[in-house]
């Protein structure tokens, strides 16, 4: 990555679209440009709020030929757009002679070019990493677009990592914290997932995002549903990782471990962290194959594995890591059923168990399923996957 040399001093930025493209629906353009901004807010504390008028940080215009800044556009092809670094105002101009398109292989993809130009508006220069979004050349429509690590490092060197904020309340005596919604983008609803909300596994990544795996696909969760633009292919985001994962968790070392059958993989972010897969029996002595679920329990920071009607406790610092007194009956976890699908210590400090279309919130202090209204188990579809037609209750966020 390369930095131009300037950046915004504030993180809550505003933008307005002063001139829309002549051939696209305005509401669709609003949504695509919001999505383009969220490419950068996903990894930083930047927020982008659209205004319809008045002073903003970033002004966006679709123009043809000479348009007043001495750098005329050149018609279809060639230069697609350009933008100004923060020190020069941060505005972004797009060549309205291009065939801008949305979610289509025809024409030029508006989302990808806009995300690139907004990188300039935030202070990034062109990168010589060919797979980077900030490489200067348009590489065609990519339906499974992902920000390259080069771009993530670049934007975080300007605006820091995405941090978590405390918003107070919550049980179990722990300080709850929930990632703050960073763009005004509403969550999406995935009809297929709502129709069958059973999941393979659910885990938090090191940067605080929460992911759900099912089959070959994954979804990133927002505070009250799944993020727009999903599902995506697991193999594209975690190269080398198969689908149909049994269990996953992120440990204190920031590495994420995935389990399937008799094997496990270790990733650092979305990069495989060495030569994997390895045998579970080799890396997690005493833990069986074909797991149901795994989590790092907030009560003592140790790793718990679940299978059938039993559970194991794994302490990396101990020899052997699994005591002879394990496995123990899962019924020790009062109120949690056998044969669960997934388990998670969520970012609010609570521990959750999932099975079929239902989930339970566990009270670590009382060591039993929490009591609340509505009772547990609740509908995973409504509370976690944003399925509005699923059984109701109080809405999302910490109330999960």
């Amino acid at each position, binding site marked *: 990555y390369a*930095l131009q040399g300037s950046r915004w001093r504030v993180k809550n930025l505003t933008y307005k679209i002063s001139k829309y493209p002549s051939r696209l629906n305005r509401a669709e353009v609003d949504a695509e440009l919001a999505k383009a901004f969220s490419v950068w807010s996903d990894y930083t504390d930047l927020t982008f709020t659209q205004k319809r008028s008045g002073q903003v940080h970033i002004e966006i215009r679709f123009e043809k030929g000479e348009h007043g800044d001495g750098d005329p*556009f050149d018609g279809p*092809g*060639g*230069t*697609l757009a350009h933008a100004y670094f923060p020190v020069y105002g941060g505005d972004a101009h797009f060549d309205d002679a291009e065939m801008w398109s949305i979610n289509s292989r025809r024409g030029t993809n508006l989302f990808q*070019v806009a995300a690139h130009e907004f990188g300039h508006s935030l202070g990034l220069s062109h990168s*010589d990493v060919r797979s980077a979004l900030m490489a200067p050349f*348009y590489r065609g429509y990519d339906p499974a677009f992902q920000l390259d690590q080069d771009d993530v490092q670049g934007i975080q060197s300007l605006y820091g990592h995405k941090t978590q904020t405390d918003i107070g309340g919550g049980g179990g005596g722990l300080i709850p914290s929930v990632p703050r919604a960073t763009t005004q983008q509403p969550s999406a609803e995935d009809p297929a997932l709502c129709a069958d909300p059973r999941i393979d596994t659910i885990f938090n990544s090191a940067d605080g995002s929460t992911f759900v795996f099912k089959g070959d696909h994954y979804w990133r969760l927002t505070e009250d549903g799944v993020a727009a633009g999903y599902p995506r292919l697991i193999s594209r985001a975690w190269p080398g990782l198969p689908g149909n994962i049994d269990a996953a968790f992120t440990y204190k070392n920031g590495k994420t471990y995935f389990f399937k059958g008799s094997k496990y993989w270790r990733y650092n972010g979305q990069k495989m962290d060495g030569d994997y897969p390895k045998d579970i029996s080799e890396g997690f002595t005493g833990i069986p194959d074909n797991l149901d679920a795994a989590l790092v329990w907030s009560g003592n920071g140790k790793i718990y594995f679940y299978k059938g009607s039993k559970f194991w406790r794994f302490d990396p610092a101990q020899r052997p890591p699994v005591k002879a007194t394990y496995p123990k009956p899962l019924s020790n976890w009062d109120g949690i059923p056998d044969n669960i699908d997934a388990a998670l210590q969520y970012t609010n400090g609570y521990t959750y168990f999932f099975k079929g279309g239902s989930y339970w919130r566990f009270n670590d202090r009382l060591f039993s399923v929490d009591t609340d209204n509505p009772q547990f188990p609740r509908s995973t579809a409504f509370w976690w996957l944003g399925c509005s037609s699923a059984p109701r209750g109080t809405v999302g966020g910490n109330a999960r």
Partner: protein
Amino acid sequence: RSSAAPTFGTTDKATMYLAQYGYLSPSVRNPSSGHIMDESSWRRAIAEFQSFAGLNATGELDDQTNEMMSLPRCGVRDKVGFGESRAKR
């Protein structure tokens, strides 16, 4: 005047491209300077572009380089900021 207009071949196009995206001094885009440029700066500019674009940095304006120059792209210069020789941190 029309007979004096330069024929706009690939070299001229490449010169404009290299000047537009920061590999050559913008002054070469000014017709009044008559596109006067020494060989070494031209070859260096081509090699810098080739290196930035992930091509072999030969300094020769070959087909692959021309093809890369014809791709649709962003209008912001590739070389910006201070200390150009340290463009990547």
